[in-house]
């Protein structure tokens, strides 16, 4: 066991994967000697050599396409997109090839690849460095979208992603990279994909979230506890395909639900979670389902960034609304 930040946990998982499977390779912009702009791959090229850890030219399309080609031929590439804001040139390769190689060849070829990208706001980065567009990728059949929210979950989920036989988009909330540290056993144990994490049990309201918003949501739950409101906090962990059963079970118990995400409201993945409940748990619902999300606008430059990000206060407002609803 060692105390690790999330970025250290990512690095440890990558090192473990490189060590255990010679077919695992890492590539992306500045992942080599620089160790990645967030240092996720620091020291890896020194340890595993430049044939396992490679700097690519500056081309996100080719990074994704290279991963498709290499994975279809038996490698297990773990590619990095430097920031999620630069993932769009890779979308074509993800939608048109990675997500469907297995389906289209009826299993003859497949793409056991991972595309990692730091995402989300909160570090006052330049334009395009702070968006959260997991919902766009989560709509694509054939992709898994996994988002860790703690060092231990980053470690376990990333190992699961690398070992998974199908393509995984692994989005790392960069605001959490160094926010906290915790004990993580670097023992190669993966966490299950497609399973949600109940981070806090409660009886009065269900708070569903993922990624960096776990922090504000847990803080809201803590403050609610002070006023005797018991909130259950669920971290989806894997956004697609997500653990519908876990969310339903919780809402059947609490009868109230608030969904929190950083991405813009409209068409965000919270819509899916709410829609599923509106179909399957209607009779359990004691109040409307509220979503607390980013505004439906471009992530502002850093001076207004704080005003954009969903805050604990906005979560609390929504929770009070659903609690007081009659």
């Amino acid at each position, binding site marked *: 066991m060692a105390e690790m930040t999330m970025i250290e946990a990512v690095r440890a998982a990558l090192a473990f994967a490189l060590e255990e499977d010679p077919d695992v390779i890492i590539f992306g912009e500045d992942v080599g000697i620089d160790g990645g702009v967030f240092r996720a791959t620091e020291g890896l090229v020194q340890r595993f050599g430049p044939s396992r850890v490679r700097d690519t030219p500056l081309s996100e399309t080719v990074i994704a396409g*290279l991963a498709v080609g290499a994975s279809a031929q038996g490698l297990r590439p773990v590619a990095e997109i430097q920031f999620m804001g630069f993932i769009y040139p890779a979308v074509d*390769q993800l939608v048109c090839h990675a997500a469907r190689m297995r389906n289209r060849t*009826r299993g003859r070829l497949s793409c056991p690849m991972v595309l990692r990208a730091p995402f989300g706001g909160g570090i006052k980065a330049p334009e395009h460095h702070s968006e959260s567009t997991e919902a766009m990728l989560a709509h694509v059949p054939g992709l898994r979208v996994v988002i860790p929210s703690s060092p231990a979950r980053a470690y376990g989920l990333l190992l699961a992603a690398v070992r998974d036989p199908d393509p995984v988009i692994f989005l790392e909330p960069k605001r959490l990279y160094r926010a906290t540290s915790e004990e993580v056993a670097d023992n190669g144990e993966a966490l299950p994909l497609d399973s949600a994490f109940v981070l806090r049990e409660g009886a009065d309201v269900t708070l569903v979230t993922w990624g960096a918003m776990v922090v504000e949501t847990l803080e809201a739950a803590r403050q609610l506890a002070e006023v005797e409101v018991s909130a259950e906090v669920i971290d989806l962990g894997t956004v697609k395909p997500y653990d519908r059963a876990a969310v339903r079970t919780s809402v059947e118990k609490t009868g109230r639900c608030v969904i929190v995400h950083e991405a813009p409201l409209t068409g965000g993945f919270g819509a899916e979670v709410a829609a599923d409940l509106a179909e399957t748990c209607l009779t359990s619902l004691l109040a409307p389902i509220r979503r607390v999300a980013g505004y439906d606008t471009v992530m502002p430059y850093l001076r207004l960034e704080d005003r954009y990000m969903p805050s604990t206060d906005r979560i609390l407002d929504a929770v009070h609304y659903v609690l007081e609803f009659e």
Partner: protein
Amino acid sequence: MARTRQTRTTDPGAYLDAEGTLLRELPDFAKSRDTLVALYSAMVRCRTFDSKAVALQRTGRLGTYASSLGQEAVGVGVASAMAPTDVFLPSFREHGAQLIRGVTLEELFLFWGGDERGNDFSLPKRDFPVCIPVGTHFPHAAGAALALVHKGVPGVAVAVGGDGATSKGDFYEALNLVGAWNLPAVFVLNNNQWSISVRRQDQTAAQTLAQKAVACGLPGEQVDGNDVIAVREATERALERARSGQGGTLIECVTYRLGDHTTADDASRYRDDDEVSAQWKKEPLVRLRRHLTQVHGWSKADEEALLRTCREEVDQAAENYLATPPEPAGEMLANLFESLPRDLARQAEELGDG
């Protein structure tokens, strides 16, 4: 790591002219009657498949189809130079190459008939399926080449695309990566002068497509894409370079699309019959047949026997295809992931097995 940056911009090299006359000394492989007959037969087989496919489409028994009429020498020349351990990445017009690689006629019919099982090749296990989006398979070729290197397999990834594909960023980004990483990949351009209705010269101001290699620091070469010997010879040299660690090559095969873009297209909307008629004189089968006749005693009987064999084979494959019932609908979900995620169970149930 030597990097050649020479690019031939002269007339594309050919061994046989349109009349089948020898223009220069043949490479060794092309001195063998057997080899030439094999190349010729492969082109005839491809053309037979093409016309059957068009016929099936016209009668509503196949989906939209892209014929390779007039361009058979490209696929056949390229694939005949390849080894089984190489990896082939076709665009949608390389039936000739796929057949040589070992994809069956029936699989091709299934694919074009709208059945995913057509991509589940029994033979070239690691070849890629047809790539419908233009140019997106070039990055896959770079990835495949990387995998070959990583696994220590002495193979080469070979991707074929059209003249239109050279305008896509994917093509350029991948070619650049092949150059930068010195990967064993060969990119072949099937320059048939048209990208649907857009002429080659409106696609790019580059004098040749081969010279696009200059941008990526690797050799580019233009060959007569209607001369199967020239295509094969250039491919062999490129493969040899790649196998010996000298990196990638771009080969432009200059040919012509004698048919419509696909069965959904009507080329008479945008090009003159005269242009097409002139091109018919240069098509790849006739010149090789003339050479075979003149030099290797290819007889009328040989020709008829070949045509008959091809027709029988193709007809049989078409029958098998038509007799194949569609897959159960559940397969559309069952093959999405290696194992069905819990989340999809309800949908799988709804789809059922039938």
